[in-house]
Every structure is written in structure tokens, then in C-alpha cells.
């Protein structure tokens, strides 16, 4: 498990990351969301040791992280960067060897991943000849090829086409199933919602929410949509409910007391019939707007 405790980083007078404590459990995909300048990248750079820590700690398996631990992490920085003029495979092997892998194993691993991304035939091309999306796949390959014990990926999905997003998502799920903690940041909230087991939401350098999507939704009362044959105005008179909105035959309700649900439905049936009664799951983007506001 990867954790940070009160991680803090200042740039001059600005505190970019302020006492950030997050948990990235083994075997789960943890999505890291937040607007530009929220402090996601800075936090990730401190976790990987690329940036100095001004206060707080990074823990790996419950103890302070060491450079040797970090060497076995897979890290993908925010801006796509590789040596533009070096051939893809040479470059991947070089980076893997720096991370301590032996040359032959590095080669095999790189080729296998390139194959998966459909880039095996570009292995000898210079990186600068590849499209941006393909460069990014090479970058992901660089992060994954050393069989890392943890993955820290800054915006791994940006710039990928839908097919590539799917193969990347599969790859990350696969790594997580292998027991690896995976932390990745993204601006694509729907994707994070679909993919992630856990979420960390940052705003202005602080963590504003974290947990499973259900945990986060659990914070707000359960909402239901009730659609009747006749006018729904009468629900305003029912106790134990908070009526968010009524629009003709349709009402949006927050159930404050679960015991009122059955009487409510009986009442509705007696008044002429129910067309729809469904729980409304707020989209992540709504949650995000609420907590990050």
C-alpha cells in the first residue's frame, strides 16, 4: 500500500500541496482528480521522489519510502517525454536498464508491450516519427515494462483515441488485479468513474474527498425519481421526505426516513398508478462540483 501523510510542498510563497494524506491500496485503481493547479502533479512528483518534500511523509508498505523502493515504481510524467531522436526500443531498454532490469529481459518486456499496443513494427523508428498518441503508448510502455510494484501515472489517458483508452484501461486493471497499487490522474471524470475503485479529489492543494465512489455518494442522502400517471404535487405534503423538485407528473425526492417509502408508494398507487420509481445515482461530475466548489 502506498500512502502519504500530511505531504506539503511550497513554491516560494505558494503552498502548492498542503498537508495531503492519501491512500492508494494494493490491487485497486485509484483515480486522482482535480482541476488544473489543484496539486495532483506536485503530489505525484513528491511520491516518486522527483521533487523534494517540504513536510510530511510518503509510506510504502507502512514504512518510509526509500530510493530503492522508488526505483521499482512505474512513473509516467505529465508532459510526454522521451528522447525524440532515439529509436523506440533502444530507448525503452535504456530506461529499463537504469531501473535495474537486465538488458535481455528489458528487450523482451518492451517488445511484448509494444506488440499489445500495436507498435511492434515501429520499434526501430525514432520516437519523434511517431504520432503523439503513439508516443504516449511508448511512454506507458516505459512505465509498465519493468513490472513495477506500484504505478504512478500522470494523465495516462490524455490524447488517446477511444480504442487506445480501452486497451490502456485493460492494462491498468490487469496490473491492479496483480496486486499492484495504481494511482493515476485524469480530467476525464466519466472515465475515472467507470474505471476506478477509489477516488481522490483535490482542490487548491488540499484533498477534499477520497474513498470509493459509493463512499463519496454515501455522504449525500439517497435520491429517487417518482413518475406518476397524475399530478405529483401532493408529495410535498408527505413527511420524512425532502422534495427537491416537482415537475408535472414527475418528482425528485430525497428520502430522509426509509420507513416512509412503502406508505408513499401505496399512496401513489391509490392515486392512480406509478410509471417509474428509481434511485438516482449522481454522476461523478456532480459530486466533483459539490466537493470542489
Amino acid at each position: 500500500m502506498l500512502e502519504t501523510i500530511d505531504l506539503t510542498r511550497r513554491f516560494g510563497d505558494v503552498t502548492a500541496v498542503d498537508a495531503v494524506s492519501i491512500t492508494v491500496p494494493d490491487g485497486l485503481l485509484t483515480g486522482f482528480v482535480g482541476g488544473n493547479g489543484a496539486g495532483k502533479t506536485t503530489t505525484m512528483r513528491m511520491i516518486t521522489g522527483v521533487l523534494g518534500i517540504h513536510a510530511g511523509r510518503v509510506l510504502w508498505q507502512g514504512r518510509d519510502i526509500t530510493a530503492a523502493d522508488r526505483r521499482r515504481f512505474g512513473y509516467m510524467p505529465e508532459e510526454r517525454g522521451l528522447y525524440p531522436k532515439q529509436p523506440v526500443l533502444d530507448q525503452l531498454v535504456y530506461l529499463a536498464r537504469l531501473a535495474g532490469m537486465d538488458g535481455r529481459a528489458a528487450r523482451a518486456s518492451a517488445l511484448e508491450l509494444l506488440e499489445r499496443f500495436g507498435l511492434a513494427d515501429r520499434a526501430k523508428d525514432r520516437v519523434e516519427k511517431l504520432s503523439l498518441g503513439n508516443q504516449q503508448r511508448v511512454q506507458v510502455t516505459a512505465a509498465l515494462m519493468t513490472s513495477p510494484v506500484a504505478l504512478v501515472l500522470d494523465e495516462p489517458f490524455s490524447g488517446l483515441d477511444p480504442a487506445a483508452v480501452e486497451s490502456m484501461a485493460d492494462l491498468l486493471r490487469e496490473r491492479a488485479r496483480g496486486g499492484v497499487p495504481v494511482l493515476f490522474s485524469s480530467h476525464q471524470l466519466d472515465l475515472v468513474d467507470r474505471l476506478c475503485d477509489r477516488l481522490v479529489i483535490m482542490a487548491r492543494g488540499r484533498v477534499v474527498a477520497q474513498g470509493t465512489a459509493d463512499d463519496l455518494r454515501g455522504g449525500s442522502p439517497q435520491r429517487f425519481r417518482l413518475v406518476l400517471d397524475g399530478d405529483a404535487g401532493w408529495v410535498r405534503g408527505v413527511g420524512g421526505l425532502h422534495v427537491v423538485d416537482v415537475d408535472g407528473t414527475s418528482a425528485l425526492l430525497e428520502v430522509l426516513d426509509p420507513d416512509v417509502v412503502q406508505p408513499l408508494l401505496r399512496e401513489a398507487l391509490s392515486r392512480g398508478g406509478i410509471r417509474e420509481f428509481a434511485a438516482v445515482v449522481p454522476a461523478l461530475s456532480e459530486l466533483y462540483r459539490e466537493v470542489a466548489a
Partner: protein
Amino acid sequence: MTAPTNLDRRGSTPAAPSDAAPGGRTGTGSAWLLVTRREIMVKATDRSFLIGTVVTLAIIAGIMVLQVVLAGRTSTYDVAVTPSATTIAQQVRAGAAAIDEDVVVDPLAVPDDAAARAAVLDGSADAWLHRDGDRWVLTTKDGPNDSLKAVVQEVVRSEALRANASAAGTTLEALERGATLGTAFLEGDAQRAELVDALAFAFTFLFYMAALMFGVTLANSVVEEKQSRVVEIIATAIPVRHLLAGKVLGNTVLAVAQMTLFVAVGLVGLAFTDYSSLVTSVSGPVVWFVVFFLAGFVSLACLWAVAGSLASRTEDLQSTTTPLTFLVMAVLFGGLLLEGQWQVIGSFVPPLSAVVMPIRLLQGDASWPEALLALAILLAAAAATVRVGERLYRRSLLQGGGRVTVRQAWRVEE
């Protein structure tokens, strides 16, 4: 030089090869070697680097060949003479070699003045030597040839003097007694002095070229890594000092190899020229030059890497490398211009000493102990720049956005 075995400053323990993790992983101990190897491979397969090396070698070889050709070339002049001038023509022919070793004069016998004039006009003769009243005239088609003119004039003059002396009842030798000026050298000789000047220029210029060329490449490759964020991936894997050490080492190996190649070709070429007898006597100073080059280059290379790390984009390099460009130019002008007392002082002041001391050794002005002292000072300076450079490099490398000043890099919290 720096084969870093020290701890990573981030407060970690170095991973010794013995604590290799499963999966065939090795420690960071030899990471600098991987970086060095990459630097060398990338540069050694870079077309412009290879072309530059070959062109420089061709220029050096060309200079040598030119020396040989110029030294071995003699010019033969056909001089038309009528029967009345045969005697003087034979005297010119016999005396030419003693006056100018590169000039050979062949008299061409012609029956009369008209034939002589025709021969000069159609090019079968280079000149026509004939009597006009009480003087001799050398007629050529257009402008006079200086070498031929000098030879003919000298012979004509001494023959006339000999005849006049004889008429006056004395001899040419008696007339010229006490009128000659010879030259002598207390140290070395004229030929050696010429060679020393040429070599001093070559040393200085080669150092300047290498320091600038490899320096700019190094700064560029540092900023390339920083700009593309590759450095972040590398910094997760290995201590940044290994990256710096590998880059400096790789470029130093290439620079020294290139320099050794140039110098070797130069020395071999020298053996074919008139200066061949001096090859052994300048070889010692040449070896000193390579040693000083190595020490001077390493200290400058570290600074170039720092200049690269202070920039955040390639466009910033212009401003971050300016102080270094001036420093390297100072070394160039120091090597070319310093003389006397100033040269002695300069030969101990790094990085000037990297070229000035080998020049003094070449000129025979400096002793071995002096050379060793200068080398020790240069190495100490190199060690200091490596330390300061490493700190600045490490701190500025991972600062995002905008260029970093030296002061910021020095003070910034890691």
C-alpha cells in the same frame, strides 16, 4: 574524475548489487556507466559529429600535405640567351641553388634577339637575359617573377663586382670582408620556434573548439532531458548525480578520444615534413597538452551541464550559456596573447592553465614541477566545479517552469 559511489542526497541507501531485487534487477552502482555508454553511443552515431571529426582530420592532414608539397617543390625557369650571354647564363645556372634552393635555371640558347623575344612571347622561355649598354636586362612576357629575379640579380651583381674588383687590382672576397651578417640562437633554432608558435596556436584552438562544441552539446542534451521530462523518469530510477557523472564522463571520453586522434594524426603528419627531426622533442609537451585538456575539459563540462539545467527550454540556453562562452573565449585569447609575466601567471590560473601551461612547456619555459603544480591546481578546481556543479544541477534540474538563476538553484529547498 567522478565515479560516484556516494549516497543519494535524498536520504536513501544505495542499492548495492547484492541486494538485487527479484527479476534480475541490479543496483544503481553502475547506473552512471549506462548513462556514459548512452551518451557515447548517441554522439558517436550522430552524423554531424562524425562529419565534423572527419572534416577536421582532413584539414589537419591537408595542412601537413601542403607543408610537404611546398617544401619539396622547385620551380624551373627556362631563360633564353643569345650566344653573347651564354657565360652569364651558365653562372646563373650554377649559382641558383646556393641562392634559392627552390629555383632551378635552365639556359635556352637562341640565335638572336628576335628569336629570344619570340620564345618569351610563345612561352617556350620564361625570360630573356640580355645586355643593354652597361647593364643586364631580364625581359619577361608580363610581370617579373620575384624568385627568378632575385637569383639572377644576385648572380649578375656578384659577377659584376668580381670583374670590377679585378679591374681595381683587388678581389671580391677582399671587398666583402666584414660585410656579412649571420644569425644565431641561444636556445633552439628558427625552425623550432616556428613549430612552437604553430603548435601553441593549434593547442589553444583545439581546446577552444572542443570546449565549445562538446559543451554546447552537453548543455543541449541536459535541457532536452529536462524539457521532455525524461529526466523525471530517470530521477525515479537513479540518483541525479549518476546522470550528471555519466553525461560528463561520456562527453569527456569522446572529446579526449577525438583530441587524441587529431594530435596523433598531426604528429604522424609532422614526421613527413621538414619538421620531422622535432617530432620527438615536441611529443612530451603534446602529451602534457592532452593531460591538461582532460582536467580542463571535465571542469568546464560540469559547468556546461549546469548551464543546461538552468534553462527550461532550448531557447533559454542562449542566455544561460553566455558566461561560459565568454570563459571559453577568455581561454582562447589567453592562450593566443599572453606573454612574459602574464603568461606565467596565467599558466597557474584555471581554466586558463589548461592551455597556457602546455604552451609554456612547449616553449621550454616551464619545468616539470611547475607543470605538476599547475595540474594539481587545475584538478582541485575541477573537483570544486564538479561539487558545485552537481549541487546546482541536482537542484535546478527538477524545477519546472521558466529559467532558474544560479542563486535560486543554490538556495532552493530540495
